[in-house]
């Protein structure tokens, strides 16, 4: 999937999941977002979103919590500590890749 960029986390390096990660990383620590609100912010279909969320959950990046509030089922989604760190690593690597770009990414560091 990440043919040219093996150093990029394949779980995050896909448009839909990257968008999910950006949105969830915007939450304050300990906050959760309801599934419908996340869906609305991303403008994704419910099915598409849950498919991608499952992949992120399998990697331990997101936490999906299903509870009931006044007998109505509610689903909350949040980023795990691990997910937050993975997203930070991902963006750091992107920036490093782009910084080495000008000469096609030779490994040399100039002093």
């Amino acid at each position: 999937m990440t043919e040219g960029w093996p150093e990029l986390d394949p779980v995050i390096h896909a448009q839909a999941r990257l968008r999910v990660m950006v949105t969830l990383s915007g939450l304050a620590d300990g906050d959760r977002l309801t599934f419908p609100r996340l869906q609305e912010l991303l403008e994704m279909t419910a099915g598409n979103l849950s498919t991608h969320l499952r992949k992120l959950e399998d990697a331990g990046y997101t936490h999906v919590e299903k509870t009931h509030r006044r007998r109505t089922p509610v689903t909350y989604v949040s980023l795990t500590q691990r997910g937050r760190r993975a997203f930070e690593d991902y963006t750091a690597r992107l920036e490093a890749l782009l910084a080495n770009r000008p000469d096609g990414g030779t490994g040399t560091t100039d002093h």
Partner: protein
Amino acid sequence: MSDDDPTAPRGSDPAAAAPAGPDSGGGPLSPAASLALIESERGRLLRRRGVNPAPIFASWGIAWLIGFGLCYLAAPGGPSAPLPMWAAAAVLVALCLAAMVVPVVQGVRAGRGVRGPSRTTGAMYGACWALAFLALATVNLTLARGGLDADLTTLLWTGSSLTVAGVLYLAGGMLWQDRAQYLLGVWLLASAVAGVLAGVPGNFLVLSLAGGGGLLALALYYALRRPAGGARP
């Protein structure tokens, strides 16, 4: 097996669990495209969940410029009155209440669908405003009834309300690490002091022109500084 989410809104077809294949975003992303996507998503989020300081400052600025301006014109020692003092004060209070609604609306919009610590903080902070102004009104009304003269009563109300509002904005700035809100608090405190030092009809002029003018300048600053909001759809 509770396999698909029960909260999924109407029209979610049972094919929900279909393989991600084609909708994972069409083609591999290059690092540059990926970084651009992150930026544009952050911009989108800022517009939909973020707090925009410009309208907050602008509504306060307008309230003060017009409200305190009318009070100055109507004050006993001031120029000829186009309207009675009570009417000017009523306009001021109405405009200030309207200005307080703006951040509340933005906060509610930002907090929609969010659960957790920040929601509790927001609710407690909102209650702060109500408690503080309830206490303030009780104290001031009691003091005024105790025989304070009209000029001192005026200074008491403007000075104390602006101080309380200023301190609450300082607290809001600290809670959300929001420099704009903190700055607004500082400006309200400075205006409260300057107004009381200026004495009675002059205090209204200070609050209207310096206070309101400063707030409008801040609004303009934030309107110009705010990023265009990322890529368009």
